[in-house]
């Protein structure tokens, strides 16, 4: 199951969505808003998406992960909009019969999300400037 949401991610609900008697392992990963990046202080973040494509890409990632690992349940939720420090921007929950597969699948999904899912983060720095994050590309801070 994949979802984009403007609302805070309900971590308990994500966990409940994958836990069942069939699986012996659940890995729940949360990506959270970090205050310091290479010494710069973040006040908050804004996420935006190309939602139609982001959903398709997430669905494709789930399908591919299910081909590669014996996944019983998979939930991927990405938050959009404005996030304060320590809030979760993404939750990935994977249930498998044994733990190795759940760890591997969650790691792989996160690595792929950072390459192929059209979602972008804007840093609202503590000094009042803002900056879109585009890995590999220089984007000047804006007032």
């Amino acid at each position, binding site marked *: 199951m994949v979802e984009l949401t403007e609302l805070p991610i309900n971590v308990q609900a994500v966990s409940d969505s994958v836990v069942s008697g069939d699986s012996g392992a659940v890995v729940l990963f949360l990506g959270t808003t970090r205050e310091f990046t290479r010494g710069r202080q973040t006040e908050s973040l804004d996420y935006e998406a190309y939602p139609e*494509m982001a959903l398709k890409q997430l669905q494709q990632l789930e399908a591919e992960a299910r081909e590669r690992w014996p996944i019983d349940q998979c939930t991927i939720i990405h938050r959009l909009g404005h996030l304060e420090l320590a809030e979760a921007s*993404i939750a990935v929950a994977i249930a498998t019969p044994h733990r190795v597969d759940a760890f591997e699948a969650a790691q792989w999904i996160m690595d792929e999300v*950072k390459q192929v899912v059209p979602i972008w983060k804007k840093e609202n720095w503590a000094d009042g400037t803002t900056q879109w994050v*585009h890995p590999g590309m220089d984007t000047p801070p*804006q007032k």
Partner: protein
Amino acid sequence: MIIQVKLFAVARDLVGADQLQVELSGTCTVETLKEAMVQLQPNLAPMIDFMRIAVDSQFATADTQILADSEIACIPPVSGG
């Protein structure tokens, strides 16, 4: 044909709109679309090589053909997660 290119993040901020209207003639590929975008909006030039183009919600390659009814989006390097 006239194509509406969806813009996001830094590309949208640079252009000041969430779509860019591009007029193209003849057979058009992702490569010719990018050239036309830079002609219209020279401030996209430094970053156009970093941008991927999506055609109908799929990442396209430089020689992917663009049709009049394709949905086109300009995808700067992503930073979700």
